[in-house]
């Protein structure tokens, strides 16, 4: 097997990964590699639409952004992390401007900002409704100006190699040839995104399967707060793709079957711009109480932006108009858009500190796959792309500093061999009668049915049992394609292997948390319980499944209070 070496390897090339690569590459003696299973501009970050939150103008303040974030998080965010985040976000907006991001502008040529849910000031910088897309293409262009960054595009990372709780490198498959390689590095930055593909109805790209979370978890990093899954209030029916919160930021209404703006009963002040967890619950309540609209793909809620007028829709929301026409057969200029909450974001992820360090020396985690914890129990819209930029940069810098002071350590060959055995013998070589697509779809059905917006202990227990059975069945799969080159069947099986672990951790964490906080809403424990549950869940990987421990929340300026909007 071929072995390659770099100072730093970044896994994943979305906003966080590319930002980390740029930050690391600026230390010009550092040799950086970016390994991604898709070409960088195919990453799920291009789907981010509405905006990137940052304090830019008078009337807004770091304290206000921080307070909005903390309150939005239902007080589970670590407030030191929030403080650092809000202070560094503006410089990221400036950097993107300098590199060429086509920010939408105000009359006087300044970067425009729009309203977003849970923010008490219009602070979402945006590039129409393709903010993530434009950020990605700018970052991709910038990252490619460095001679010391090498891209391994369409390489699928299989495992991390760790010796004495220190990163030694990783194993990956070059998808084109199907050959496995070992890559050595002094530091690895995980930037692989979230895992909402464990659900059926999701805004997520097909390729965003949360691989890095499992890869880190299996070598001893903890997964933190995985029970907190954000359901975006406006997933297009039927495909589930995102219809930006910007549609409401620009003034769109949510209507039930009676034509009522029902948010008046749930968040009378903020209405459609309440935080996402609150709106998602409101929508589900409307549907469950019989006030959803009926369509061929089940009940839905109407997102009405007609009153904004065609000109404003074309200027501010061109993508979602196009998407609604092409995928929903609906022109939002003429008809309301059929929507429903869709699994959208993981507040949880690989346990990392404020410097993005994980408990494994040399392993860093940034972006959605990480949890430091900035978003607590519920993330505010626009804070994810800012998070990727701010902590992507910090992760790249920290990893570079680490790499400069260390040398490569010897590869643990037994781990390389077992990784090879796992992929080619146990998965590609498996000769059972189970199908990857069937197990995958059953997992998603379980998650949709029992680990959705409203949860119960019974439901979660039955979901856990179901997922464990699926894990058993996974041992009996057959991958029909036995060849090596561009074997997407094998990639699908490896991804399912990773997501099954993540489903299990998500359910286990949710089952243990007997309270309702932010996006985690228990029918059998409907109140927030600060006395017992103002703490982070930490899941450790063991042979018997996840073992849970808990860690305190960093409270600085703002002790928990009642959360109303």
């Amino acid at each position: 097997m071929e072995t390659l070496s770099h100072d730093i390897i970044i896994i994943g090339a979305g906003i966080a990964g590319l930002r980390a690569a740029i930050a690391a590459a600026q230390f010009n003696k550092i040799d950086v590699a970016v390994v991604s299973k898709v070409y960088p501009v195919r990453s799920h970050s291009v789907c981010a639409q509405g905006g990137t939150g940052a304090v830019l103008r008078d009337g807004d303040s770091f304290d206000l952004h921080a307070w909005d974030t903390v309150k939005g998080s239902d007080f589970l965010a670590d407030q030191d992390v929030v403080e650092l985040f809000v202070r560094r976000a503006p410089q990221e907006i400036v950097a993107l401007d300098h590199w060429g991001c086509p920010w939408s502008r105000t009359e006087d040529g300044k970067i425009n900002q729009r309203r977003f849910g849970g923010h008490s000031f219009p602070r979402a910088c945006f590039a129409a409704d393709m903010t993530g897309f434009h950020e990605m293409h700018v970052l991709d262009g910038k990252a490619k100006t460095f001679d010391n960054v090498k891209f391994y595009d369409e390489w699928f990372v299989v495992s991390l190699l760790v010796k004495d709780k220190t990163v030694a490198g990783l194993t990956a498959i070059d998808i084109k040839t199907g050959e496995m390689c070992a890559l050595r590095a002094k530091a690895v930055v995980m930037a692989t995104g979230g895992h909402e593909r464990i659900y059926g109805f999701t805004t997520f790209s097909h390729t965003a399967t949360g691989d890095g979370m499992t890869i880190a978890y299996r070598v001893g990093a903890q997964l933190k707060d995985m029970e907190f899954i954000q359901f975006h209030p406006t997933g297009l029916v039927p495909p589930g793709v995102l219809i930006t919160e910007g549609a409401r930021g620009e003034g769109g209404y949510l209507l039930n079957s009676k034509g009522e703006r029902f948010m008046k009963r749930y968040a009378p002040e903020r209405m459609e711009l309440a935080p996402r967890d609150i709106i998602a619950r409101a929508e589900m309540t409307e549907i469950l109480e019989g006030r959803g609209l009926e369509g061929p793909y089940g009940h839905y809620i109407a997102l009405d932006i007609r009153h904004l007028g065609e000109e404003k829709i074309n200027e501010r929301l061109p993508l979602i108009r196009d998407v609604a026409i092409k995928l929903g057969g609906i022109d939002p200029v003429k008809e309301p858009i059929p929507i429903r909450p869709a699994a959208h974001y993981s507040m949880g992820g690989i346990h990392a500190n404020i410097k993005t360090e994980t408990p494994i020396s040399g392993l860093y985690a940034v972006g959605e796959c990480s949890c430091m914890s900035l978003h607590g129990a519920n993330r505010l819209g626009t804070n994810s792309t800012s998070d990727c930029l701010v902590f992507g940069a910090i992760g790249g810098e920290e990893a570079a500093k680490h790499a400069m002071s260390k040398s490569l350590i010897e590869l643990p060959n037994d781990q390389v061999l077992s990784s090879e055995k796992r992929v080619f013998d146990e998965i590609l070589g498996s000769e059972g009668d189970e199908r990857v697509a069937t197990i995958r779809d059953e997992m998603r059905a379980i998650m949709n049915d029992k680990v959705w917006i409203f949860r119960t202990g019974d439901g979660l227990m039955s979901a856990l049992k179901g997922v464990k059975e699926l894990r058993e069945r996974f041992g009996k799969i057959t991958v029909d394609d036995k060849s090596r080159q561009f074997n997407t069947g094998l990639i699908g099986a490896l991804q399912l292997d990773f997501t099954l672990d993540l489903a299990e951790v998500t359910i286990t964490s949710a089952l243990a948390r007997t309270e309702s906080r932010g996006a985690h809403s228990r029918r059998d424990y409907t109140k927030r319980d600060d006395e017992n549950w103002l703490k982070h869940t930490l899941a450790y990987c063991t042979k018997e499944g996840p073992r849970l421990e808990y860690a305190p929340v960093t409270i600085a300026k703002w002790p928990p209070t009642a959360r109303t909007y």
Partner: protein
Amino acid sequence: MASKVEKVVEFKIHRFSPEEGKHYVSTHSVPIRKGMTLLDALLHIKDNFDETLAFRSSCRMGICGSCGIVVNGKPVLACYTQILHLDSDTLVIEPLPKMTVIKDLVVDIQPFLDTYSRIKPILIKSKDSLKEPEVFTQSTADLKKYWDLSLCTKCSICYSACPATIDEKFLGPSTYATNYRFIIDSRDEGQEERLKDMADNLWLCTSCNSCTLFCPKEIDPSTSIVDERSLMVETGGVPRTVRDILTSVVRYHNPLGMHPSKRMDWAKDVEVKNYPAVEKADILCFMGCAPAFDPRSQAIAKSMISLFNRLGVNFATLGIEEWCCGDHILRLGEKGLFDMLAEHNVSMFAKFNSQRILTLSPHCYNTFKHDPPYSDKKLNVQHYTQFLADAIKAGKLKPTKTINKKITYHDPCFLGKRNEIYDPPRQILKAINGIELVEMKRTRENSFCCGGGAGRTWTEDAVPEKRPCVNRVKEALELNVSVIATACPFCVTTLEDAVKVLDVEEKIEIKDVLELLDEAI
């Protein structure tokens, strides 16, 4: 919760197994529901019928650019194409052309992505202006100038459809569009540097419009290349071959370097009335420069005159007062020169009393239809294929002689892709007894450019295997036809060049539809 099955569609997927080096076709019947995209169908096939099928996909909302494929000859994003809209019970699915197939529908896009390393896809700023930790200001109007061009997802569809990318010197439509997007970004300071790298390759674009036609994000790279050329013309970065053409047009009002007094020499032995001898006719024939000066094209012009006289049409030409229409000149980026030509021709149209203008060349037709100042005049203009197809339909013209030949028709881009005139030339050919008309694989809107547009017919200096015309003639040869018919003097010339280069003059000949019809009357 699924909606009902509307119909069952047969998918014929072109596959490739790299291990066995084998190409084959797999066929699958897929139940189609309302709202289903091509990507949904591919996923259905992979999950239910054949897990080994390889294709790329990710965002499923048209923004990541992963899933470019060809359906029934047309390149599309699978996730952004509704199956019911295709209105077909059989769908032939192929990988994007041009790039090497890795497996099934997966192609190697690395050569395409590498073209971006030859431009700088971020702002070029002086060190000083980047020191200030301030955002730049940009008016909404300045943002709008480049916004549409910034929407490129790098899906590679335009690159795969582009005839000029046969030559790797040519960067590809989206790469030039991205380069131009930065040039016109008011924050950018790198125009000179950005143009410099384009000077010897930008001219390979033939303005065939495939990139613009197929872009899933409705970007118009074709026009942005013309705009980029205009900057090149302004800043003097024009290669000698192009400069020669422009100089000739300035001096002689034609690109062929011929003295304008000789414009009607070709018509000495045919019966045709000309301005200023006549100032009025039912039809004004705009002959074009190639038919006026190029011996091969003159034969086509003579066929046209012969047919019109047979039809008893009351027609005339502008004689030596006809100037180059300017289509090629405009697309070479010389907008000022184009305006001069157009103003003259427009003034002549005003002086000459006729009900309609008929063009021999699709290029004249196109520019009269779409480019101001011509288009402002809303001229009643027709291409000859439309006029003659109508005459045949009305029974005024009856081809009587038999031509026993297997023929294929090559769609000129300026007639087809740019003006959707696909049927009239075919109707004419079908009206001729004995002709067996067969279609090339790339036909109608999916046709492949001959490589002669935007002045390239005169500037061509690529080696044969990098010329689009050679590629095109090879495609026709596969059909075992003895004639490639077309309806454009430039297509005739470039395709004939390819026939000579390939040394297949014994096997195949290039004919204008006019010549075949004239022969059959």
